[in-house]
């Protein structure tokens, strides 16, 4: 049993298994890709909301487990595939919290679990440096946006609470869309910026 578990944990996603997973999500490849991305994002959200420290890794672990089962020829009997992924994700999380290495992290106050030693002058300097990097990257990413997106996000976030709400209503009227649709547009642009800043920071030369 132990060796079987070990094999499963070290199973590597093959191109064939990935293709099979996509076909199972939707026969149309483009839609399957979109569905895959939605499931992956939902998994990341789930693990993040359940206080996992490695949401992206665990999302991928969940996807791999499902892909492995499909590659092994297993059938999955559910009305909606997404609920199956959710079920597997809950098990991945349960195993994570049952692992001995999680106990140490869990025993610490959440805000202290990963950092926050007040004497870390060097780390604070590093954080300051990273903030400056982040601002620099953000400027670049903002400049890289199509001007209409840059205008939209700039208008969307402008102003203090009351003024901001009025600005958003006015912007939605101008665009001829409901307020919630505007909110989702702004979210999409913000997510694009977040990804762009992440990529930019990864390329930044070390300290």
């Amino acid at each position, binding site marked *: 049993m132990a060796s079987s578990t070990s094999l499963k944990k070290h199973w590597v996603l093959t191109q064939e298994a990935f293709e099979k997973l996509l076909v199972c999500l939707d026969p149309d490849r483009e839609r399957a890709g979109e569905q895959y991305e939605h499931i992956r994002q939902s998994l990341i959200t789930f693990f993040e909301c359940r206080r996992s420290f490695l949401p992206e890794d665990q999302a991928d672990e969940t996807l791999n487990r499902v892909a492995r089962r499909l590659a092994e020829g297993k059938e999955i009997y559910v009305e909606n595939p*997404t609920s199956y992924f959710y079920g597997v994700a809950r098990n991945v999380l349960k195993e994570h919290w049952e692992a001995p290495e999680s106990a140490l992290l869990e025993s610490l106050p959440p805000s202290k679990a990963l950092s926050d030693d007040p004497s870390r002058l060097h780390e604070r300097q590093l954080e300051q440096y990273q903030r400056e990097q982040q601002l620099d990257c953000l400027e670049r990413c903002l400049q890289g946006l199509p001007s209409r997106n840059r205008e939209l996000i700039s208008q969307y976030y402008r102003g203090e609470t009351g003024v901001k709400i009025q600005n958003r209503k006015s912007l939605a009227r101008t665009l001829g869309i409901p307020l919630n649709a505007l909110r989702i547009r702004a979210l999409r642009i913000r997510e694009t910026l977040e990804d762009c800043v992440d990529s930019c920071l990864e390329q930044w030369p070390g300290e």
Partner: protein
Amino acid sequence: MNQGTDNEKRLIQYLLGQSRQEEQVRIEERYFADSEFHQELQATERDLIDRYVHGELTKREQEQFETYFLSSPRRRQKVEFARALMQSLAQAPAPAVAEGASSSQERLSWWPSVLDFLAVVSEPGCWPRPRSSSSSGDG
């Protein structure tokens, strides 16, 4: 924004780890099945982060935000991003909001058809027969 709606309150409670377990599961099942709902949750999360950055959370929300929400490194990154975004936009010159209102609609008609996408389709060969949802995902 939209702080008053019941749905938004539910989502904020979920994000702050204050939902009861059955409510938590209901919300999770829904955003796995419904990409629009997942987007709504994401938008609510960004609004919550912005309110925190602007010091607009209630005392209780702020406590919960700092002890629960910020336990995730990825979320701390999002908060840092929000701070940087607000700072950057505050320093930028104000855009011409009302100018060319009629043309704005056309300028912004770029939005990809991805918003129209909502398909959650089953492939008979892979997901052939319904079974009780509780049996899903057996590890």
